[in-house]
């Protein structure tokens, strides 16, 4: 929908960006720090023309959003910007260890690097893991999250055990805080391993793609039901947490749903399955094209518009459940709302500027090769080592972090300086992914009008701003931004936003 900026005649405006919401009636106006006001078209015209009366309710909204110049307002904006940019001060805190490429299941959307359960030479050795820890502990970040991924990482449990014990020892010696997270389908775990994970405060994340039929269609496991196996393990974790007297509100297995083509028709059933399992969060992750052949994408993939139609239905269903007293939220929306409604910096690697590649996270292949992020590793698995920035066997942290690839991705994801994004009203809430752009367009910088990731982010932000205008909905959605302190269960507070990429 075309929309011309009325002539700006108000000299008292702070820098702002704006977007006309679908439907053409309301305009979202955001300041540099992401504070916002939603105005009607007429109010917006008066705002930029300087003819909005001081006692008009919209005038209060623009003042509160810091859109009108004042000495106090400028100080507030700077303070808000600083709080929202804390990720710039941290250094790499997230370290993803690919313990093995082996997996006992075969998901329809799984990336190219997965190998069969019996494959040889694709497990991380203890010696490599020790070298990885040398690099991890050289990061200047005082908080370190070690995330175990694969393949199915629990198939190399002895190295997982080694890393947890050795990292805990090094953490006490160095004064750093270490946090562990495991991304697993859970099926290879037995009671002893579950006890180890619970006793060592390892946060566990698994996948439930929806009701049994949908989950088992997506996540193939010879003739067995992956859904049943995951549910059985979740129950065992529940019992293990309860046995130790841990609060079930804080100690639980995090769940994530990967949305495949088959999910598109059943958003309500997917959400209802999460409610049935007692989960308070559902994360509706869209498929990404990394490592997926064109044939698989043609079968399992979808357009941004198809995903957004699915997402809107799921979102509205969740809101309906909330209104009926059921406590559940959607994680992508919760992250965006945290950025929209608060000055907190959730430090989610893919929704920040610059993104976390290298400067916020590092991914370590089973063989010790280091990548800007796990997605960069997947590109390497497709045969292009573009995002490989070192090798723990051949160099230290300084070599890795000063690799030119880190700088390139940092510049390419600084969205304040990118065409399209620098003028986008949603820039304060958004993040771009140079690896995605590279895979899709052969260029680290996207052509936004043809970029599905941008369309999805913009579509979700549009939806949230549309819903924020509805009477009574803002307080309900504000509850989604509350980040509960789970430090009594895990070694340090689990940020709501710790990035996870369940297999």
């Amino acid at each position, binding site marked *: 929908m075309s929309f011309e900026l009325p002539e700006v005649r108000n000299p008292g405006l702070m820098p702002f960006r704006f977007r006309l919401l679908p439907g053409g009636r309301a305009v979202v106006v955001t300041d540099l720090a992401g504070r916002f006001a939603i105005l009607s078209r007429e109010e917006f015209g008066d705002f930029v023309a300087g003819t909005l009366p001081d006692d008009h309710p919209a005038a209060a909204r623009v003042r509160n959003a810091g859109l009108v110049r004042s000495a106090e307002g400028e100080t507030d904006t700077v303070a808000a910007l600083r709080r929202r940019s804390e*990720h*710039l*001060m*941290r*250094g*790499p805190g997230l370290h993803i260890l690919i313990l093995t490429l082996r997996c006992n299941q075969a998901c329809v959307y799984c990336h190219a690097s997965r190998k069969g359960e019996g494959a040889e030479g694709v497990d991380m050795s203890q010696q490599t893991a020790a070298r990885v820890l*040398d*690099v991890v502990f*050289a*990061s*200047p970040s005082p908080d370190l999250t070690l995330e175990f991924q694969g393949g199915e990482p629990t198939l190399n449990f002895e190295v997982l055990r080694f890393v947890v014990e050795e990292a805990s020892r090094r953490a006490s010696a160095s004064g750093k805080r270490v946090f562990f997270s495991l991304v697993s389908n859970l099926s290879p775990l037995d009671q002893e391993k579950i006890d180890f994970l619970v006793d060592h405060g390892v946060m566990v994340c698994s996948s439930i793609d929806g009701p049994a039929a949908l989950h088992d269609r997506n996540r193939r496991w010879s003739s067995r039901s992956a859904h049943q196996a995951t549910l059985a393990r979740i129950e065992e974790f529940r019992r293990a947490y309860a046995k130790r007297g841990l609060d079930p509100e804080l100690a639980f297995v995090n769940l994530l749903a990967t949305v495949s083509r088959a999910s598109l028709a059943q958003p309500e059933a997917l959400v209802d399955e999460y409610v049935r399992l007692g989960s308070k969060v559902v994360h509706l992750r869209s498929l990404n094209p990394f490592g997926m052949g064109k044939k698989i994408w043609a079968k399992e993939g979808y357009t941004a518009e198809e995903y957004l139609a699915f997402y809107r239905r799921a979102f509205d269903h969740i809101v309906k459940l909330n209104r009926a007293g059921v406590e559940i939220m959607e994680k992508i929306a919760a992250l965006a709302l945290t950025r929209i409604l608060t000055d907190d910096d959730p430090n989610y690697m893919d929704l920040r*500027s*610059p993104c976390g590649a*290298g*400067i916020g996270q590092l991914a370590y292949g089973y063989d010790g090769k280091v990548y800007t992020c796990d997605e960069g590793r997947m590109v390497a698995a497709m045969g292009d080592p573009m995002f490989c920035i070192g090798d723990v066997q*051949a*160099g*230290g*942290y*300084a*070599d890795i*972090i*000063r*690799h*030119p690839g*880190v*700088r390139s991705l*940092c*510049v390419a994801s*600084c969205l*304040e*300086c*990118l*065409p*399209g994004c*620098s003028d986008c009203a949603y820039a304060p809430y958004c993040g771009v992914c140079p690896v995605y752009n590279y895979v899709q367009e*052969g*260029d680290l*910088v996207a*052509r936004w009008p043809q970029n599905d990731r941008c369309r999805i982010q913009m579509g979700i932000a549009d939806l949230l701003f549309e819903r924020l205008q509805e009477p009574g909905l803002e307080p309900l959605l504000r509850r989604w931004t509350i980040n509960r302190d789970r430090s009594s269960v895990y070694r340090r507070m689990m940020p709501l936003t710790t990035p996870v990429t369940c297999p």
Partner: protein
Amino acid sequence: MEISRETTKDSIRLELDEKLFPRPVSVAAAYRFLDRCYIRLERAGKQHLIVQLKGKQKITKASLECLAEEFQNELLHQLLRHQVAERTAGLRDAIVGRALFSAEPAPTEAASPGGDSAGPADMDYLDDPLGIAVPWEEKYGEGQDKNGGGQGQS
């Protein structure tokens, strides 16, 4: 006219006004076509650049026209990218510089055996302290171990 076009049997020539499309913009746009075309750049007069796109495979006139349209879209993208990069250079340096500075190793790591001595305070994000951009032969001479620059850990 900012862009004029001329089609021959197997190629298309676009003449670009460099006042509107600075040379780095046209070159970046042309570069994107390397996989599909043979590219020829020619100066025309003081302020025009001619870009000739010649299909690597046999190509129809309609496909050539299509290539030219695509090239013009790419020109727009590169022009905007160039303009935004110029307009926001100071902001980019501040943000990227801060992010890279925060990721710099603690002094013990940077000064560990085999490490470089450049501390974070001396660093600019465009610096190349490890000489990564320096050709291998120049950096180490011949006959050295490839991992010779490897760094010990603190």
